[in-house]
């Protein structure tokens, strides 16, 4: 489904995001290499999912795209505009171009603002001075996310809303500036099962209606197939596999993706009867990641004298790009 003809909205080349560790508040004590060489293009109207465990660098990658972190090395182009190192006002304006849906809807809303004020803030900050115009746009966006009747919700404070309603406000805020790209960071992981699907469907509806490009970040492989066209799997600061969603879910190639799929349960009483095959150990430190393939210490199919020495690069295998020597 990936449409090569579509124009590129966001282009990321060899992106590194490192955080310096300090000792005594000033001495250097190494780097946390949260994102270590990530490359991909995102097209207009495209949805991609980034899947990985906590600490794999997906949040740092996302925050860098949002302009909240500074890239250490590499290039980010948004609409052919180099936005790798904007400062001050330019950075502020860049941030406003991307919608952001957060994980914890209650935390994402200032507790002392009502819904109207929350939704007005981005407009005020980005120069919509006319209050009538602001209210018109607030009402419109509330209709979009089905916070209706609007008058019932306009003056409510976040704590008076249910989790699902809070997340609708967050989504409304993300799209009120009419962005071309929305980043959704685990938008449903803190919601109840019965609400999750509702929010995912709402997001998908908005995406289709406005031809939004969406980066969907999640640790849950099972929701990915309802949302995205392409999936990137991240492990220890690297993207280890990129593939169209159907192909990735049914036929994962990287041993880590395989492990991830094997560990993800569907509701089935037979689960209780079998043990799951899992890679041993835990993800490595991002301060001193293992040499070669970062997954090699846990990998059941590692190739001696190769995987622990040479760092794998993106290798084409069917319609997948896999950073794994098995596919060389």
């Amino acid at each position: 489904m990936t449409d090569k003809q579509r124009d590129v909205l966001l282009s990321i080349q060899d992106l590194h995001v490192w955080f310096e560790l300090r000792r005594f508040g000033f001495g250097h004590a190494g780097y946390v290499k949260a994102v270590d060489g990530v490359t991909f293009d995102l097209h207009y109207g495209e949805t991609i999912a980034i899947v990985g465990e906590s600490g794999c660098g997906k949040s740092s990658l996302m925050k860098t795209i949002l302009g909240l972190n500074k890239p250490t090395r590499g290039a980010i182009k948004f609409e052919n505009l180099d936005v790798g190192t904007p400062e001050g006002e330019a950075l502020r304006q860049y941030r406003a171009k991307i919608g952001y849906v957060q994980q914890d809807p209650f935390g994402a809303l200032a507790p002392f603002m009502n819904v109207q004020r929350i939704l007005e803030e981005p407009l005020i900050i980005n120069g919509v001075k006319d209050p009538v115009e602001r209210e018109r746009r607030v009402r419109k966006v509330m209709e979009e996310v089905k916070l209706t009747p609007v008058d019932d919700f306009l003056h409510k404070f976040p704590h008076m809303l249910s989790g699902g309603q809070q997340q609708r406000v967050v989504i409304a805020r993300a799209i009120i500036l009419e962005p071309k790209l929305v980043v959704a960071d685990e938008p449903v992981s803190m919601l109840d099962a019965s609400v999750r699907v509702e929010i995912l469907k709402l997001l998908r509806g908005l995406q289709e209606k406005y031809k939004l490009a969406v980066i969907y970040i999640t640790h849950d492989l099972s929701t990915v197939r309802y949302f995205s066209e392409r999936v990137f799997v991240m492990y220890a600061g690297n993207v280890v596999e990129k593939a169209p969603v159907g192909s990735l879910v049914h036929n994962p190639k990287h041993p880590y993706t395989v492990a991830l799929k094997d560990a993800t349960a569907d509701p089935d009483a037979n689960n209780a009867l079998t043990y799951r095959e899992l890679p041993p150990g835990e993800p490595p430190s991002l301060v001193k990641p293992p040499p070669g393939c970062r997954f090699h210490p846990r990998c059941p199919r590692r190739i001696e004298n190769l995987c622990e020495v040479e760092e794998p690069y993106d290798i084409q295998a069917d319609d997948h790009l896999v950073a794994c020597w098995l596919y060389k």
Partner: protein
Amino acid sequence: MATETITATTGQAKREAFAHTTLGRVLRYSLVRLVTLGVTVVIGIYLTILIANMGGYVDTIMRNEIRDNTTQSILANPAFRSLTPEAREKLIQEKIALEEKRLGLDKPFISRSIKYLVNALTLNLGRAINMNSDSGSRQVRLILLERLPATLLLAGTADLILFFSSVFIALGLSRRYGSLLDKITIALSPTSSAPPWFYGIFLILIFAGILHVLPFGGLVDSPPPETSFGYGLSVLKHLILPASAIIISSFFLSVYNWRTFFLIYSSEDYVDMARAKGLPARDIERRYILRPTLPTIITNFALLVISLWTGFTITETVFLWPGLGRTLFQAIGLYDTPVIVGSTIVYAYMLGITVFLLDFVYALVDPRVKVGGGNQQ
């Protein structure tokens, strides 16, 4: 910052053996704190000196006094009677210049202040201008040393009684949440908005003025009793009112705060867990409520000491208690710069030492305290 990624690193971070022993960690931490606190104390003392003599108010007052004293002493001295008025005037001027030199008034302010700072830091506090110690010495150090025990006696007694009684009573109340005693404590806690001297007035009024059972003030009867036992008893009698004033003025709020604090901490998940584990109530209180809150308890003890150190000036004045606070007050009344700076320095040192001890003990009881921000959580 990227807390998420940092968390991932700590689980596996390799640590050197020394860094990981409690002693090593505490020593390294304490050393760093000692250096920073040292700098802090130096700056604090220098600021004190600047405030004490900024704009030269004290200099002017001192010059006037020198002029008056010198003139008078020469006029009163029969040896100089025979001199002509001009010669006498000349002699006076010479004497004044000599005296000003002796007190260092001829040098520029900055060099004087630096000299003062060095002296102050080495506790070389100089000679007082007007004040004497009881033994007649003009050495500021001796004057202050003479007064220090009285302050320590009052502060120590009041602090210790106040602190331990309120913590333990609070612990008891937190066990009996909602009881009548608990409610009374809550209701009385606003009484702590008044300072010790305020309660001192009432205590003096009742016990000294009306009932005549305790003295109005002072450290010991006049004349002091001959035997050391009698002396001690007399001091104790004089101690009751000021110490009570200090304790009363903080007691209820202190108990209320501790009680609330313990209640909040006893609803932590790990306390629930300890209850679920079926540990005896005593163990839970000791290991799961007191132990994790020890850093906070210690901090509060230190803050109490700090606030009392500086709060004693008035209490001591009201009770005529011959401690550092009253000395400071008297010195200011007499414009005695060396004594003012001296006592402020002693205060700054005492505060610095208190803060340092606090940090040291804090590091000892809280395994999470480390030097630098590398892997804090």
